[in-house]
């Protein structure tokens, strides 16, 4: 790919992000000119970058968006909801196009022109029709050149006066006869920064002998550091003769660009030089350690006694061990990125979805100081988008229904990440209608997901978990359901690939919470190595609750399946060999069988294996290519002896297993 384009694809999304964040923040604080500036700068920079490439559709959209923001920034326009929607749609589309560019290496999708045309017309409509900045202003666009001139003439410092209140007062000709004195009014303005008094038509010659001093022809223009309300005070009896607006000086071209208002996390991995230095130092030490081994090899060749050699080797191995440990921690530290920048991308997603559905939804995001592995941060965007869209679409009720339930019209979804031990927990909670277990039962029955009797035996919270089953959700099911369900199985699969798990809880009428639990990092995984059918497999320790030896006498066949009682709880017993499609040993050879008890979606499931081989810390390599779509496989790792160990995703295996081998939940009948 072109180097320039590569750079653009790194920086572009950050700028889209900045613009989007600023626009969303502006909805809450419409008067904040710093935010307008931020959005304007980001869009302006994007437009400039796009100009370097042959992307006319994108360029057109950004150009009009910039115009609209510029008009807003200069106070020529107040931004309406429609304009805001159009701007947010434009940033969203730009982001999608950037994604497409990255995927194709420089081409926009075929429909880009049509999409651009649509956006451009929406934006220009907003540009043409938006209401002026204040009620006191005229319907025509407000001319702000005089403000700028006044600001400059008075040598005001934009840094000291980021926002000023500008007032233009053109008293009508008869004002003196009403006892008004425009100069006295100007005198009453607080915190005056500039005052200019001119004749209304300064260029017109004065008729020296017919001049009427009582036909007022003054125009008073002033800037004040006080708030518009305070400035307006003295003029309260002449509201029709003033123009009042809050104005900010444009960033001066020579001044260094102000730092973006909102912190922005890098999406590519940018590493502090200090960390790289630390790495380099570690590598140096490794070289020294390696040389020490060469020494030892030499000494042994010269006849060093084996016992002395063993001791020296032991020491050096310990030194190497420490070094490798430090190296590993350093590298892991480099891979950790803050999660907040990822979360900050979602308010826009939520807003877009909510607007499309005609709902009012706020998204509260929190995840200060939470860091995750970069791969996890990247892998979370899709599933979280999915969850949030579902929450807006299916979780949040229409306004009328909310009103009837006594809830505020604006719904609230919270997206909160926090660290718990070695895990990151992300909650997506809405205050919507919640999920109705009865209707999920109906839907599951209608889809034939489980036999009716089994459904009846499930507790309500286990019923909710059914939404994660493949095949549960179709468009039909979703419209019938008061819950959610679009592609929840995809969410579970995506989170599973990251080594995490998903659970759901809901209170009818009060909302739904989906909880994602993810490992802090993907780099080092503790696995239990088990043997089955003379093969070895790894099972992540994360998911293992315990290991058990089960006396065959305690195993009871239950229809096609088996179960046993583990400390007063019935636990279904599955065969790993069967799950993997391997030849299975007989179940009734009289010896206790070994089982790994794992937690699958909140329930215990035992998986029978032939033997426990041991525990290992492994570097998990995610699957790529065709294998990555394989259910039940998390990845592979290389064992010390050169063998490749497959790491299994037990819940995934169970979910992918056909029919009755996959009982849901621990609820054996």
């Amino acid at each position, binding site marked *: 790919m072109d180097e320039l384009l590569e750079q653009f694809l790194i920086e572009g999304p950050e700028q889209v992000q900045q613009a989007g964040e600023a626009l969303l923040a502006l909805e809450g604080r419409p008067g904040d000119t710093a935010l307008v500036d931020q959005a304007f700068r980001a869009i302006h920079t994007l437009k400039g970058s796009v100009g370097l490439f042959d992307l006319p559709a994108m360029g057109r959209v950004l150009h009009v968006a910039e115009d609209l923001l510029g008009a807003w920034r200069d106070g020529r326009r107040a931004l309406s909801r429609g304009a805001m929607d159009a701007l947010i749609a434009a940033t969203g589309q730009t982001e999608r196009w950037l994604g497409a560019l990255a995927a194709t290496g420089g081409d926009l999708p075929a429909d880009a022109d049509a999409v651009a045309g649509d956006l451009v017309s929406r934006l220009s409509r907003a540009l043409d029709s938006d209401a002026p900045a204040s009620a006191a202003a005229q319907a025509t666009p407000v001319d702000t050149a005089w403000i700028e001139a006044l600001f400059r003439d008075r040598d005001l410092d934009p840094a000291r006066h980021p926002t000023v209140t500008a007032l233009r007062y053109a*008293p009508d000709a008869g004002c*003196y006869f009403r006892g008004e*004195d425009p100069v*006295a009014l100007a005198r009453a303005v607080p915190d005056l920064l500039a*005052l200019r*008094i001119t004749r209304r038509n300064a260029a017109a010659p004065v008729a020296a002998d017919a001049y009427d*001093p009582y036909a007022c*022809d*003054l125009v008073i223009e002033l800037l004040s550091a006080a708030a518009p309300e305070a400035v307006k005070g003295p003029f309260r009896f002449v509201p029709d003769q003033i123009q009042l607006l809050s104005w900010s000086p444009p960033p001066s071209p020579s001044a260094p660009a102000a730092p973006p208002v909102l912190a922005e996390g890098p999406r590519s991995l940018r590493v502090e030089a200090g960390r790289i230095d630390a790495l380099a130092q570690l590598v140096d030490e490794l070289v020294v350690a390696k040389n020490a081994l060469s020494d030892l090899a030499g000494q042994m060749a010269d006849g060093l006694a084996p016992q002395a050699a063993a001791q020296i080797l032991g020491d050096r191995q310990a030194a190497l061990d420490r070094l490798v440990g430090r190296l590993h921690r350093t590298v892991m530290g480099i891979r950790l990125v803050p999660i907040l920048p990822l979360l900050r991308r979602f308010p826009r997603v939520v807003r877009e979805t909510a607007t499309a559905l005609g709902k009012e939804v706020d998204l509260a995001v929190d995840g200060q100081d939470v860091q995750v592995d970069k791969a996890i941060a990247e892998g979370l965007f899709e599933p979280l988008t999915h969850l949030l869209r579902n929450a807006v679409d299916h979780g949040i009720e229409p306004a009328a229904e909310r009103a009837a339930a006594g809830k505020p019209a604006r719904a609230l979804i919270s997206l909160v990440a926090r660290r718990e031990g070695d895990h990151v927990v992300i909650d997506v909670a809405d205050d919507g209608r919640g999920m109705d277990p009865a209707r999920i039962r109906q839907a599951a029955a209608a889809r034939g997901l489980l036999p009716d009797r089994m459904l009846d035996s499930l507790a309500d919270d286990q019923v909710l978990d059914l939404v994660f089953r493949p095949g549960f959700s179709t468009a039909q099911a979703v419209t019938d359901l008061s819950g959610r369900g679009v592609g929840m199985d995809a969410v579970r699969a995506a989170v599973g690939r990251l080594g995490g798990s998903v659970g759901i809880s809901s209170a009818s009428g009060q909302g739904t919470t989906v909880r994602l639990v993810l490992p802090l990092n993907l780099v080092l995984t503790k696995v239990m190595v088990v043997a089955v059918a003379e093969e070895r497999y790894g099972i992540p320790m994360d998911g293992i609750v315990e290991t058990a030896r089960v006396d065959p006498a305690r195993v009871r066949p239950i229809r096609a399946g088996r179960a046993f009682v583990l400390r007063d709880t019935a636990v279904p017993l599955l065969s790993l060999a069967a799950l993997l499609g391997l030849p299975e040993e007989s179940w009734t050879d009289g010896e206790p069988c070994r089982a790994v008890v794992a937690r699958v979606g909140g329930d215990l499931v035992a998986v029978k294996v032939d033997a426990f081989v041991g525990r290992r810390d492994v570097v998990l390599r995610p699957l790529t290519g065709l294998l990555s779509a394989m259910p039940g496989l998390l990845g592979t790792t290389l064992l010390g002896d050169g063998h490749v160990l497959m790491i299994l995703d037990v819940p995934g295996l169970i979910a992918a297993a056909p029919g009755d081998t996959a009982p849901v939940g621990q609820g054996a009948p």
Partner: protein
Amino acid sequence: MTVEVAGNVIRLRGVCAAEDAETLLSRLQAAPESEIDVTACRHLHGAVVQVLLAFRPNVRGMAEDIFLRDWVIPNLAAPR
């Protein structure tokens, strides 16, 4: 009397009200080269200001009143 004439200097003193605009105007029409001294001035009514703006006489002196000194007089002294 807040408009005093001394030679070709017109002194504006104290609070100059709307009525003073007419006095000032007739004086300026009679003697267009007059200078205006605002040293002792405490307020200028809008009507007075607009006469000064229209005829642009030389305005001199530092007004006692800070608002006039800092904000109004500079407008009168500034070249068109």
